[in-house]
């Protein structure tokens, strides 16, 4: 019986012109969004590879100079574009793509894609993820609001129940049939996504298939939860019009209201410092350490202890260049300050993200967004992973230069030293890392599926004709 109901619902959905048109529009929008994103990602990847090669060339050919001056000359490193940003760009437009690595300073990533965007960007960016997060639920609402309330209104529910159909079988059959209708709409989107991913060059693409499958699972959970909610409302609402009004209100609350409200509340409860305050405080704390350039009392104390340790009375008697050691110690102390400040800031941002994700228990979109960005590798945790790797590279790079200053007879260095410093190579974290980051979002979605389908099964026996 359930199979018969499911088959009828599936056929009925596809015979419904509204569904066919809606599906076609969504398919075209998401297809175009993915195609454009694919072009953007491919161009971005080419640009970054070219820029990294140019930067390496500049570094190697900077000529003879003081090794510490080379530290101030610095290098730019570029954040690789995650292959799955074809699907979900996440925070990528709002976090920097480039980090300038130099002596003494830990810089934040700069050159935000959003800064370079045209005014049209203010209207929001259409990505496949946004389409599935916002438009697919709307299509489900339009497909299901009358699934049971409409049957009641038209009188077919009376006809069905008079045949001895169990309400629970009816509801389950409808859920399966409508779910399959939606699945057949999503399959072409998954195929387009897979083709787009397969066409991207680069070795990191190979590792993205598992993440892609998990992304599919996360969206399936989300749409399943939406389907459960829609059918529950349609079961309980007295009329199809009431069901539609309730479901549209739920859609607006989930898609528009909750993301803004929750992020505002979270920002109030867990406020982040202003950028100017953050940098001023960090500068103040760095100043309290050693300054490699300008003498101060702390430097004199460090010099005294160094001379005492080596049993000499003047820095010229040391077996190394004291200035190099001073630089190394100054970097070590500054790094502690950076670790403290950036660590606190990043932990706070992650706490905010977690709070937003767990708020998904009231609006599933929040859980899905978090899981989607994490699985696509475009969330803050992935950005932090890159920033830490870039900072590690900076520290190694500065250390090599300072050690050269410390032990080299000549302060001047050339290509031989520059070549000793490897080009920055970043390997994005694997699927396990992404899954552990995405797990709160996935748990939220599972809770929604469980809750909405339990509600549907509880509501089903209350299904009565007019």
């Amino acid at each position: 019986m359930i199979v018969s109901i499911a088959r009828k619902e599936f056929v009925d959905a596809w015979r419904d012109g509204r569904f066919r048109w809606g599906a076609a529009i969504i398919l075209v929008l998401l297809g175009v969004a993915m195609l454009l994103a694919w072009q953007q990602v491919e161009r971005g990847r080419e640009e970054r590879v070219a820029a990294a090669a140019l930067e390496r060339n500049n570094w190697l050919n900077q000529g003879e100079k003081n090794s510490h001056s080379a530290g101030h000359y610095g290098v730019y490193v570029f954040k690789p574009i995650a292959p799955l940003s074809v699907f979900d760009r996440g925070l990528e437009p709002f976090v920097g793509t480039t980090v300038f690595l130099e002596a003494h300073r830990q810089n934040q990533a700069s050159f935000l894609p959003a800064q370079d965007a045209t005014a049209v960007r203010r209207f929001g960016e259409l990505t496949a993820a946004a389409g599935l997060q916002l438009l697919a639920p709307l299509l489900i609402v339009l497909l299901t609001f009358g699934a049971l309330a409409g049957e009641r209104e038209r009188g077919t529910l009376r006809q069905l129940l008079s045949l001895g159909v169990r309400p629970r079988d009816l509801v389950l059959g409808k859920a399966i049939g409508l779910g399959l209708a939606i699945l057949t709409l999503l399959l072409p989107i998954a195929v387009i996504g897979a083709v787009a991913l397969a066409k991207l060059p680069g070795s990191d693409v190979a590792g993205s298939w598992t993440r892609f499958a998990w992304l599919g699972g996360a969206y399936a959970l989300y749409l399943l939860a939406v389907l459960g909610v829609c059918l529950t409302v349609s079961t309980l609402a007295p009329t199809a019009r009431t069901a539609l009004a309730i479901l549209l209100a739920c859609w607006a609350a989930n898609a528009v209201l909750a993301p803004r409200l929750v992020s505002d509340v979270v920002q109030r409860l867990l406020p982040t410092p202003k950028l100017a305050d953050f940098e001023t405080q960090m500068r103040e704390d760095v100043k309290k350490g050693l300054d490699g350039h300008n003498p101060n009392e702390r430097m004199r104390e460090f010099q005294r202890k160094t001379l005492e340790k080596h049993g000499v009375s003047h820095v010229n008697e040391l077996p190394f260049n004291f200035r190099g050691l001073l630089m190394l110690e100054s970097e070590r102390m500054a790094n502690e300050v950076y670790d403290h400040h950036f660590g606190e800031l990043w932990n706070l941002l992650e706490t905010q993200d977690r709070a937003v994700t767990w708020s998904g228990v009231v609006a599933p979109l929040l859980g899905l967004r978090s899981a989607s960005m994490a699985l696509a590798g475009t969330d803050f945790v992935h950005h932090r992973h890159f920033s830490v790797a870039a900072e590690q590279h900076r520290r190694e790079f500065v250390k090599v230069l300072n050690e050269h200053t410390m032990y080299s007879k000549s302060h001047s260095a050339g290509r031989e030293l520059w070549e000793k410093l490897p080009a920055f190579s970043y390997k994005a974290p694997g699927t396990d890392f992404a899954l552990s980051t995405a797990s709160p979002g996935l748990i939220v979605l599972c809770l929604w599926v469980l809750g909405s389908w339990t509600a549907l099964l509880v509501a089903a026996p209350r299904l009565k004709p007019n």
Partner: protein
Amino acid sequence: MLDSDPDSVFHFYGTPAQRGSQWGRGRPIDRGRFIQVADPGLKKRRPLVYPRPLNFRHRFADETPMLETVNLTKNFSSHTAVDKLSLKVEPGEIFALLGPNGAGKTTTINLLLGFLTPDDGEALVNGASVKANPIAARRQLAYIPEQVMLYPRFSGMENLDYFSKLGGRKHTRKELLGLLEGVGLQAEPADRRVSTYSKGMRQKVGIALALATEARALLLDEPTSGLDPAASHEFSQLLRKLADDGVAILMATHDLFRAEEDASRVGILIDGKLTGDYARNEIKDVDLEQLYLKHLRA
């Protein structure tokens, strides 16, 4: 051999195995007490899609009624819609329930379908309480409302196929076509979407559904309301055919003419109370309209 015995009912309806393959797809079909009856009078071989023996209403008048209400009462707030209603509809009987708007006719049908729970008394289908097991009760019923509601994006054939499957019966396309033709819908309209159907055509699909689900009782709620006289006449003929096949029919109606023509018994329901219950022979020489108005004024 049972199936070669001309006096055996199997001669006319096939062996249980044959019926199983035709109707029940291997499941046993409950034919109740009727199955063992051999009727030498039934000479004409009936198509297998008509499962019920003919003309046994008189023979089984003393058996359990197919539809029965015992002191059935339903209140809506302070209003009593059905008040201690007791009636019986035997197999093969057409019981016309007459009454003005709001008399409780539709409520009675809803109580028999188990869509409403009685405040007192009991509704029984084939002797079993509807309240105790509404699903089992509905499995024996077919319901035809004032306007049979079908799925507009499906053809009459597809609707019939779907509804009969939900009623627990699977039929081949040929069998369904036979049923639709039997009620006067030919192949061409049967394959058309029902959004193009007239009300009469929809009602015919409703009757075909009752045949397809092999319903033992039929509940009709103003079935001829809005039908033109020809369609109404055609519909009545189909009802009589069903009754001849042993189906118990309870028909709530305002149509005194049809009640007079078709009903084997007429009940008059005023303010939820059955104020009159007449056998056909009791009213054959009486003007039904006058009788009805007399009850209404009483």
